């Protein structure tokens, strides 16, 4: 069975599913789709209500194509049913909760049964194998541990693979580099910008390291950035994809070909739609990625709109995997952006500024990337209400604004006071985000 023994990836039995004949894979998909739709219909009010409105029952799903009849699920549905409204399992069967930032301060909550955790481990093992990680590797996991799915997702996957996992989380560059060096780290899991940041730091410290592979995700990055990381550091840098609503990391991963991310289609059924009309688009056409979880127990997602814009690549991959690939995600169909691995909506910044001022200030968000690290600047116009002739008072306003943004986003960003009218006024909807990052 040399075809599923990816030369760059080593071998792990669980990866056999990556190489199934398409017909067999589609059989599995249909069987699981019918089962997950039944589960969602039977157990989740929101799904049943929406299907009844369309006069659909689980029996309406006879072919994979019938999925297109089902209604979409959007992020607002998770927020509206906060915290547990979309759970399809009783609390006795739920063994883990995670949460991610929402648009209004309330997070969205996701749940896992023991079976879900097993699936998550499995897809993370397949992710690591796909990225050429194997038993014997020492993984430095810089994804945040806690409510964010990144840390624990990569952690359990790495352990299940049989690799050695160091649960670092982010921050403390000195210690990261010390561990990387002293523990003989061969694999780093982080955002690509954080890795570049560490590399910058390491050049000052002149620490030789043995890192061979970077498993990078949780933020958009470009082919140019990959080339830069690979040529500057000599590692192989792989893109991975995932989102909490679906499972966390482990939805898709690049392989040795580094030509798109294979989706673990036996667990997550992809569609590409026109974000404006909701129409399903043929493979090879760019649109919004919609995912249906095929095996999730605690929180099935039916046609979840990811807002990530990409293309499904149907052509077979040189690595031999039969799983379809998506192109690297470089933009979204809504105004959310990702800064240092944190999802940010402009509306959150607005909420923060309103807390300080009481009146809506004019503001804009400028995103830049300096030495590989994302920088976010909130430019706020100084209104007569907050202006003072004393530095002390103006500095206090400045600090209050920065603290409020910090409090809501959970990350420290630069807040700059600017003169009125220095922010361009546009017709209609204000352009709040100026993204100058070169991906």
């Amino acid at each position: 069975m040399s075809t599923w023994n990816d030369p760059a990836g080593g071998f792990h039995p669980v990866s056999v599913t990556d190489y199934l004949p398409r017909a067999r894979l589609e059989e599995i998909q249909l069987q699981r789709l019918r089962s997950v739709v039944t589960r969602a219909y039977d157990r989740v009010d929101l799904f049943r209500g929406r299907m009844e409105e369309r006069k659909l029952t689980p029996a309406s799903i006879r072919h994979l194509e019938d999925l297109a009849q089902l209604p979409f699920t959007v992020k607002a549905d998770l927020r509206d049913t906060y915290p547990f409204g979309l759970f399809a399992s009783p609390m006795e069967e739920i063994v883990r909760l995670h949460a991610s930032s929402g648009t209004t301060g309330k997070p969205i909550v996701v749940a896992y049964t023991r079976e879900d955790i097993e699936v998550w481990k499995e897809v993370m093992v397949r992710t690591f194998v796909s990225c050429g990680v194997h038993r014997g590797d020492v993984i430095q996991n810089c994804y945040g541990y806690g409510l964010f799915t990144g840390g624990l997702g990569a952690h359990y996957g790495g352990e299940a693979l049989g690799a050695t996992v160091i649960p670092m989380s982010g921050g403390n560059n000195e210690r990261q580099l010390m561990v990387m060096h002293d523990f003989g780290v061969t694999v780093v899991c982080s955002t690509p910008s954080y890795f570049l940041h560490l590399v910058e730091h390491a050049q000052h410290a002149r620490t030789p390291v043995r890192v061979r592979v970077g498993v990078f995700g949780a933020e958009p990055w470009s082919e140019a950035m990959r080339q830069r990381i690979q040529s500057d550091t000599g590692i192989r840098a792989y893109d991975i994809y995932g989102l909490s609503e679906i499972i966390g990391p482990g939805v898709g991963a690049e392989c040795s070909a580094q030509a798109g991310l294979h989706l673990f289609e036996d667990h997550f059924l992809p569609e590409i739609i026109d974000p404006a009309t909701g129409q399903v688009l043929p493979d090879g056409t760019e649109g919004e990625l919609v995912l249906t979880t095929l095996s999730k127990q605690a929180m099935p997602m039916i046609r979840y709109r990811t807002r990530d814009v990409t293309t499904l690549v149907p052509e077979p991959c040189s690595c031999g995997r039969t799983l379809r690939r998506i192109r690297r995600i470089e933009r979204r169909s809504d105004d959310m952006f990702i800064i240092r691995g944190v999802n940010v909506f402009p509306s959150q910044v607005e909420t923060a500024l309103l807390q300080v001022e009481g009146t809506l200030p004019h503001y804009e968000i400028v995103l830049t990337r300096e030495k590989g690290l994302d920088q976010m600047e909130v430019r706020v116009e100084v209104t007569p209400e907050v202006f003072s002739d004393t530095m002390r008072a103006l500095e206090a306003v400045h600090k209050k604004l920065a603290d409020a943004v910090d409090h809501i986003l959970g990350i420290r960003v630069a807040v700059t006071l600017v003169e009125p009218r220095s922010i361009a006024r546009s017709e209609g909807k204000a352009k709040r985000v100026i993204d100058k990052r070169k991906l």
Partner: protein
Amino acid sequence: MGISQVSIFLENRAGGLADVTDVLAQNDIDIRALTLADMADFGILRLIVDDPDRTRNVLKAAGFTADKTRVVAVEVPDKPGGLAATLRALRQGKVNVEYMYFAARTRAGRAVLIFRFDELDRALDVLREAGVVVLSTLNAV
């Protein structure tokens, strides 16, 4: 008592100050005193002018954030120790000085200081009691 000062918010960018002085020149506004406080990202320009209300209005119309504040103008002898006597009085009265600067034009042998106090009325009492000359306008200077 006290006089009006106009303060203007300035971004830290080339030409920012010139944009303000252009507006003043176009409107024939005479600057009597001026100071610029600067931080890393922004600054505050403070002006004593012949017509503070009109100055604030023309600056606002030109898109600046401008405000009027009460400050105190004090005339001291232009000789060593001239300033020290005034500050000594303020120290004795435990009055905090928020900031201070010099006026551009003065009578011969005299210097004019502009003070910004948190407690303006109390500061005026302390100054008068100490026999310091407090001016009601800079227009006659």
